[in-house]
Structure formats: structure tokens, C-alpha cells
């Protein structure tokens, strides 16, 4: 079994349960899965728990091996997580910040040359080599988001867990980042689980959609099977049409709130 499996996930803050017995379908290598749902559905919480940042009950398996008993350091060798909220920049250059992310990788690049080369390729992949010597505290929110993605890519993970990676980006970079992630996933046979609010972006770039509502899995499958007016009305409370554009991409057109 090659890929990521999440079984019987439950997460509670005190007595309040935010995720109820969620089992995700197997997320195969080479595929992009988008986690969608309304505000407060528990998408980010679920992603953080898979990354090992929240306490949970349940199991995570990667390529048939359980990650449950692994320490954060061991888990970080396979998984990288990009949070939704990035702190304001600090007085560190973009290149330094990517190299810093590499220095703590166990079994990662040993020499400075290797670190620099690996960092350069990550910046190149995200298309921000021109920002390499700029300080993070001089960058816009969108540029910092791209740097955060470059830090993840530089670590050469097996699993990418991205929480709203395009929230601060303009249209050009939204497409560029999602294309970049999808190409990387295909080329290097990775698993990507991405929380997205933009359903059209999710429909266009994900192989599979997983829909959460109030901490419960309500639907999963290929975008064409999932995105139906009835599901959108039920989960999001909107009256919407799902149409294919002239390029063949699915488009959700929202007419009104119900």
C-alpha cells in the first residue's frame, strides 16, 4: 500500500470534540487531495494533527508503516507542513531561511555547498530566485508564503501538508503555486493534502476532494463526482451551479446564499 492513510481520527479540545472518527480514503502517491469545507469544519485541525502538531486518537500510515509512535523529528523526515498563519518576517534573508530549514534535517545535506544547492533548487522551483538575498521582513505576505513553500520543498519530503498555501497570493501566483505543487507531486511521486477555501482552485488542481463539515467527513472522490449543487447546498448553504468552462475545467457559480 503506497500512500498516506488516516484512520479513525478524533480530536478534542477539552470536552469539545472537533474531529469525529474521520478516516480519509487512501491518498496514493503521485496524487493531490484537497480538503474543503466551510469555516470551522476542522480542516486545519485535521491537517495539523496529521503533521503531529495536535493530540489525536487514531492512526497515520505512510507506505504501510505507522507513524503513530514516531517522534516529531522522525515524522518531519517524511512530512512537511505549511501553516496558514505565517509570522511577520524577521531579519533573515530568503536564502538563509531556506538553508536554516535544511540544517536541522537529520540525514539531510551535510556540507554548506549541498545546502546552498538544494536551497537554490527550491527557490527556482517556486520561481523566487530573484528574492534570494532579500530580508523576510521586507517581503509581502504573498512573497513570504512562497518562501515558506520553498522551505518545505527544499527538505524533499514524501508528504506535503499545506494549509491554505494560496491565501495571500494573487491570481498569477495562485495558479503557479498549485501547478508547481501538482508537478512536483507527479514527478517525485509524493502525497499532497491541501486545505483550500477556493473550490474552483481545488477542482482544477486536485485529483480528489475530501469534504469536511463540523468535524465529520461528508464526501470524498473525484471533483466531478463531488461537486454537485446538492452537496454545495447541504455543506456550504449556497445555491450554486457547477459548469465546465470552455477549457474543460469545472467551475462553481454561486447564485445566492440559502
Amino acid at each position, binding site marked *: 500500500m503506497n500512500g498516506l492513510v488516516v484512520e479513525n481520527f478524533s480530536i478534542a479540545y477539552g470536552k469539545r470534540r472537533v474531529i469525529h472518527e474521520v478516516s480519509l480514503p487512501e491518498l496514493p502517491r503521485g496524487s493531490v487531495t484537497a480538503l474543503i469545507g466551510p469555516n470551522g469544519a476542522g480542516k486545519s485541525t485535521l491537517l*495539523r494533527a496529521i*503533521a*503531529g*502538531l495536535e493530540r489525536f486518537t487514531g492512526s497515520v500510515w505512510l507506505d504501510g508503516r505507522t507513524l503513530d509512535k514516531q*517522534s*516529531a*523529528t*522522525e*515524522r*518531519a*523526515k517524511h*512530512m*512537511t*507542513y*505549511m*501553516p496558514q*498563519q*505565517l*509570522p*511577520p518576517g*524577521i*531579519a*533573515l*534573508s530568503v*536564502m*538563509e*531561511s531556506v*538553508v*536554516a*530549514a535544511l*540544517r*536541522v*534535517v*537529520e540525514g539531510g545535506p551535510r556540507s*554548506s*555547498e549541498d545546502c*546552498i*544547492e*538544494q536551497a*537554490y*533548487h527550491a*527557490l*527556482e*522551483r517556486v520561481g523566487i*530566485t530573484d528574492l*534570494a*538575498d532579500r*530580508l523576510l521582513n521586507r517581503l509581502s505576505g504573498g512573497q513570504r508564503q512562497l518562501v*515558506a513553500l520553498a*522551505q518545505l520543498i527544499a*527538505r*524533499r519530503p*514524501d508528504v506535503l*501538508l499545506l494549509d491554505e498555501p494560496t491565501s495571500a497570493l494573487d491570481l498569477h501566483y495562485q495558479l503557479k503555486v498549485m501547478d508547481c505543487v501538482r508537478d512536483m507531486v507527479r514527478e*517525485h*511521486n509524493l502525497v499532497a493534502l491541501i486545505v483550500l477555501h477556493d473550490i474552483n482552485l481545488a477542482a482544477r488542481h486536485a485529483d480528489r476532494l475530501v469534504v469536511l463539515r463540523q468535524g465529520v467527513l461528508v464526501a470524498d472522490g473525484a471533483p466531478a463526482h463531488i461537486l454537485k449543487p446538492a452537496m454545495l447546498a447541504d455543506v456550504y448553504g449556497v445555491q450554486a451551479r457547477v459548469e465546465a468552462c470552455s477549457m474543460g475545467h469545472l467551475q462553481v457559480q454561486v447564485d445566492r446564499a440559502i
Partner: protein
Amino acid sequence: MSVSSYCLASADGTAAESATLGLQYRRQILRRTLLVLGLAVMLCLSVLIDLSSGPSGMGLARLVEGLFDPSILQLTERVIVWNVRLPYSLMALLVGAALALAGAEMQVILDNPLASPFTLGVSSAAALGASLAIAFPLTLAWFAPSLQITVFAFVFAFGSVLLLQAMSRLRGAGTESLVLFGIALVFGCNAVVSLLQLLATEDVLQQLVFWTMGSVARADWNKLSLLALVLAVVMPFSLRASPRMTLLRLGEDRARSFGVDVRRLRFASLMRISLLAATAVAFVGTIGFVGLVGPHIARLLVGEDQRFLFPASALVGALLMSLSSIASKLILPGVIVPVGIVTAFVGVPVFVMLVFKRGKQL
């Protein structure tokens, strides 16, 4: 999956650009290394000036001669060199380095630019410990009153950091709660010290007030050796933790998802801070703002790669204290003003500036 498969096949242009960026990065590292070395040179110069200044008027040449050949010095001169100038100058240097390094680490682990041993109550707790020892001295033959003051100050300062530590381990306690707790600690300790001052006799009151004015005049060779030892032990651990501390600056979630054990990192850092701040404050009293301002100046110079920031902070702190020590001898001719007063004069405007700068960012 092989790791190398990640690398894109590099075209000639890409290889050239990669080499250019690599060169830029190495230059940046070199520039930071040179800045740290420059700070060390400036510190040496400052210490020399500090050594050569004082009410006795003994010049640098005579002092250097005396250091190499103590027999040429008269008894008074020997006392001035070995019991006053050298210990005072070196104590200023070591205390500045210890407080600034502690401040730099505190600012990272609490993610707060206003954190320092002074602002989070470590100095106030030390003052409370010292005040209690002064007001209620124990009558034990083996425990001299001056030693009691130092030991009590250390225990209270160390205890205050352990309290901060315990707070940080409480579930749901964020870094902001820690800072607020630190501020509460400052007010709490100051209130008790004020109460002791109110109830004290005239003699005791004088001692209490003098202790709260941090002064390097309490230096002796035992204290110097101990503080130097603490710095020598702590610094390598700080440097070892510095790459992980740099990641912590990028955000706790990111650091954790990159495999950094943040709780352990914070615990170890607070232990280092406890040792540095408690030892420094116990030996010289309340020295304000060096632990706050030192790291900020260092950050402006070398950025936030903690591998450079920690040594640079220690050097800037030492330099600030050394310069303050020189100023403390020059402000009033013939009188050595407690160095804590000088650092507060310099520190207050910088502190206010930082507060307003932070306010604009929010």
C-alpha cells in the same frame, strides 16, 4: 525515491545563477563573521580605555607595565590595578555578555522583542532576595552577610526563571501569558522590596537602596571566575541550539513540523537563561536594559541567524557595559556612579523607541 531525483536538470544558465546566489550567500556569512570579529576588537579597545580611566589618574602605559611586572607598582597602585580596575572592567564585560545573551535567548523563546531578564522580573526577584538577606541577615558563622546577599539574590533570580518555566509548561499558556506573568512578577517583587524599605532602619535602608543600583564595585576575583565559568559553559550550548532557535523564529508550528522539539528547546534555553541572568544579577545587582537593548543592536548588525546573533549579542552587551563603566567614571569627577544608573539612562530612550516601533508594526 532517491533524494537526488528532486534536483532539476540544471541548464548552463541555471548553474551560473546557482553559483552567483551561492557566492552572495557566502559573502553574507563572511560579512556577519567580520562584524562579530569587529565587535570583539571594539570590546578590547573599550576595555583598555575602561582600565586606563579612574579617579586615581593612573594611565594605560603604567597599568600595562604593572600587569606584566607587578613588582614595579607601589602597593596602592597594585591595589588599584588588581582589586579595582581589572575586576571592575572584567565584571562589566562579563555581566554585559551574560545579560545580553540571556536577553537574546529570551526574546526568541518568548517570541517577544521586549523580553529580557530585567523586563520579565529576574532582576526584581534578585533584588527581593538580596533585600531579604539585607533586612533579615542569618547569624551563621560560616555564612558571611555579603555571601548571604549574593546567594539569596541568585536563588530568587533562579527561582523566578523556574516559575516562568513552570508557567510555560502549563497547558494553554502562550508566550503572551508568560510575558504578562513576568510583568506581574516585577510589580510583585518591587512591592515587597518597597515594603522592606519602608520598615527598614536607616542603615539597612541605605544598603537596600544601594543594592538596587547595580554596581560593578561588588566585583572580586571569585565572582569573576564563577561568572566566566558560567558563560564558558553556557555559550557552547547556546551556539549548538542556535540553528533550531533560528527555526523557532520562523514560527513555532513550522519549527515543530521541521522536527524541532520546541518544548525541550525552550526548557534548555530557560535553564541557560536562569544560570546567566541569576549569576550576573546576583553579583552586581539590578542592571537595566543591557539584556534588552544588546540583542536589538546585535540584530540590526548581523540579522537573525542565531549562530551569529548569540555571540554578537554577548559582545554588544559586553561593549555597552564596558562603555557604561567608562561613562560612570566620567560623569562626576572623582566619583564612580553605579553603572546600573548609566545603563538605565541609555536604555530608557532605546526601550521607548522599541515600544513605539513595535506599536507601528501591530
